[in-house]
């Protein structure tokens, strides 16, 4: 933002920290995620800075390195063998290509498909530039409403990101051709913005979107320069908070074609849950919060190199051991690491069932301005030069997130009157889903107590579903019917949800007997 002629500050990945001088302006609410040491050293979040005047020198700190793309683009795909989408537009040169897009709140991922045989030619991912206008969807809608030209700006940012993904796909593909078909799966807000509609109604009761199905438009109509003649198929939405990304996830899970009852979790910024089979489907949004995406947690970061991805607590010395994505010194902890950390702290008896720290022995706890904190990495071993700490308020938001996820599934089961044992498969989708340690998840009670063998990790199911829809016309038609055949269950008006949530606000669960198979914490002495 700012004057493009003067400002040389560019959008950087979400957790990139930059050193600015002079005249740096930081929005007050962004400061929370930086430590006081960082602020004193003049470090600011690039995505939250506006250069006001003069030239700005930007230094990208070492921990803000390129993304670990695989986390966001890998997904189990359906084996499909056509018929492929009808080619309405004959390419002027080269071979016909299709692009599948997953337009996420924080990440845009894409895959390039050869429409002759359905093979995936390239994959890429980029950060959603809208992150500069708010981490979650609601704050982006607020940004759009409160700023003149807010929504056009949000749309331009999204288009910039999509252009970046598409040109990245074309660049890295070995096959010359023209993109004639695009399928885009995104949540309702992003889909509305992409389609040029105001997402404002989603924010207010009764949270209904302007459109649930988006008639096909060409790239030229939407303003996408890199694929002007492509037909854009935007996945339909189920409700205000259950969007096309979930429809695409259902498609990838295949639950709508099977007799077996499947529970589908999309553990993203919001945490949507779908229950169903080929007879019925019911979906809800758990408003779980982004703790497992590294958000709302002081030491949290996305799954980039330098992020701690798994943690073990030494039962005797009570200190943390970890593995870092890409090796080297850690800069923060990503979702799977946060999950591991909490589970290990619980097993070591350093967290009680109520989600409170229990300092004991020589465990490395210290007081911070955000409450008691467990020191995961000491300053001398961290890439930032400051302690990486996990605070009491971080722990609270993890427990709230896990309670919302667990209670959402129970609420759906209760709504349709099914017992837990009728669920035959539990699919976990989302970037986090690829690297999740199920044992840790069940120690904390992130999901209801299903046997381990029922879990299937789908990875980025939203992208996988979008690829499926490009490869097979029938899949796209299924997606179009899914939005009307899947019921939306509003948890905010569900009378029993708060009680289920309160039950789940405990580790692993107030209904501890159901989790008996899980490892118990070593008793504190």
């Amino acid at each position, binding site marked *: 933002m700012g004057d493009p002629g003067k400002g040389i500050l560019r959008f950087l990945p979400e957790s990139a920290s930059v050193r600015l001088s002079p005249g740096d302006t930081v929005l007050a609410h962004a400061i929370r995620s930086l430590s006081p040491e960082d602020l004193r050293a003049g470090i600011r979040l690039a995505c939250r800075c506006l250069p006001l005047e003069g030239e700005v020198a930007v230094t990208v700190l070492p921990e803000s390195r390129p993304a670990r793309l695989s986390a966001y683009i890998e997904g189990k795909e359906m084996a499909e063998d056509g018929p492929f989408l009808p080619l309405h537009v004959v390419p002027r040169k080269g071979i016909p290509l299709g692009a599948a897009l997953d337009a996420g709140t924080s990440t845009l991922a894409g895959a390039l498909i050869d429409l002759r045989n359905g093979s995936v030619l390239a994959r890429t991912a980029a950060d959603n530039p809208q992150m500069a206008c708010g981490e979650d969807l609601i704050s982006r809608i607020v940004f759009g409403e409160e700023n003149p030209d807010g929504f056009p700006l949000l749309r331009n940012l999204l288009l910039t990101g999509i252009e970046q993904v598409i040109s990245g796909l074309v660049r890295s593909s070995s096959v010359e051709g023209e993109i004639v078909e695009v399928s885009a799966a995104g949540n309702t807000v992003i889909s509305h913005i992409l389609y040029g509609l105001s997402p404002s109604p989603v924010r207010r009761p009764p949270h209904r979107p302007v459109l649930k199905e988006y008639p096909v438009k060409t790239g030229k109509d939407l303003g996408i320069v890199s694929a002007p003649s492509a037909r854009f198929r935007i996945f339909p939405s189920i409700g205000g908070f259950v969007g096309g990304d979930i429809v695409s996830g259902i498609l990838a899970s295949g639950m709508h074609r099977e007799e077996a009852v499947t529970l589908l979790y999309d553990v993203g910024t919001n945490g949507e849950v779908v229950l169903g089979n080929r007879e019925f489907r019911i979906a809800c949004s758990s408003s779980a919060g982004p703790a497992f995406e590294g958000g709302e947690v002081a030491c949290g970061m996305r799954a980039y190199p330098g992020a701690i991805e798994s943690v073990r607590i030494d039962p005797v010395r009570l200190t943390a051991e970890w593995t870092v994505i890409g090796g080297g010194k850690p800069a923060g902890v990503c979702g799977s690491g946060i999950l591991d950390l909490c589970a290990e702290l619980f097993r070591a008896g350093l967290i009680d069932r109520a989600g409170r720290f229990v300092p004991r022995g020589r465990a490395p706890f210290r007081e911070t301005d955000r409450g008691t904190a467990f020191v995961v990495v000491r300053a001398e071993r961290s890439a930032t030069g400051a302690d990486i700490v996990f605070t009491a308020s971080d722990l609270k938001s993890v427990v709230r997130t896990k309670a919302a996820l667990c209670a959402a599934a129970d609420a759906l089961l209760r709504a349709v009157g099914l017992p837990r044992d009728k669920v035959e498969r539990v699919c976990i989708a989302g970037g986090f889903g690829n690297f999740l340690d199920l044992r840790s998840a069940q120690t904390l009670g992130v999901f209801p107590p299903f046997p381990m063998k029922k879990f299937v990790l789908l990875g980025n199911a939203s992208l996988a579903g979008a690829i499926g829809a490009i490869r097979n016309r029938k899949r796209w038609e299924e997606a179009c019917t899914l939005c009307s055949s899947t019921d939306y269950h509003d948890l905010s008006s569900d009378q029993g949800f708060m009680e289920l949530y309160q*039950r789940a606000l405990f580790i692993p669960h107030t209904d501890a007997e159901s989790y008996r198979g899980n490892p118990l914490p070593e008793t504190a002495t």
Partner: protein
Amino acid sequence: MTVPLPKQAYPGRILPVTLPAGPGGTPVTVGGQNALSLAPEGEKPNAAAIGMEVRTGGGDLPPALAKAFECRATDPVSLAGACANDWGAQFLFLSLDGCHPDGGGQPVEEGARIVHEVLAAVSCPVIVGGCGEEETDAKLFPAVAESAGRPVFLSYADEKNYRLVGGAALAYGHGVVAWSPIDINMAKQANLLLSDLGVPPERILIDPLTGGLGYGLEYTYSIVERIRLAGLSGDAMLARPVLCHLGDAWKAREAVDASETSWGDAVLRGRRWEETTGWACLAAGADLLVFRHPGNVEAFREAAWR
């Protein structure tokens, strides 16, 4: 032809809990039943126990209590003696609210001394309640646990302070009252936390927070009943005796306000307000009831539902 009455059989049984007495006193045992309180079936070996509250802080007494206590109101030790010996309380609930910074601000040592003296003056079981102020209670409970000459119950432990209260109880052999704010799940959570700490189940009572008549009593009724049903259905963490402290009935304006003459005699009204709250709790399944009015103790001891 006689039609047999259907009888409900539950798989669980409420754990019997004994509140220990001093030399020459009668211990109080509650629990042990395997049916709901008003149902005709099942075994109910112990009737509900009726206790009285003694407060250490000064402050204005409601008209009904001022009349009943007469001159004993200011001295907790002599009031405790009257409760146990004259008015028939089976146990005492000694609230150290005098240590609250807003309620007199007695030093912690003074609170512990009063506990010591009351324990010497009466032989019935005693439950000692904190002042309700987090920082003061953090010092008060360990001091009380240490200075109490015989086993008492400490009230209360919730999910925040359970380590402190449970730890003090474990170290000196006392029992614990597990408190939760009218929420069956939080009631179970508090019990799970105390169990994790190693407090034996036969030394835990459940206090589900009792709202006074017109001030949340119906919520309490429902939660007490649900706790009991869960316990009888086999949830061991909730199969424990429930204590209903009727102090909230005295917070109702209707129970204390003497200026509203059209409401009738404030002395009688206050007593009836507490009594009505008490009957509801007893019907819901409470095992221990804590009154403030001596007249109500007599009424309930005579009823002695089983």
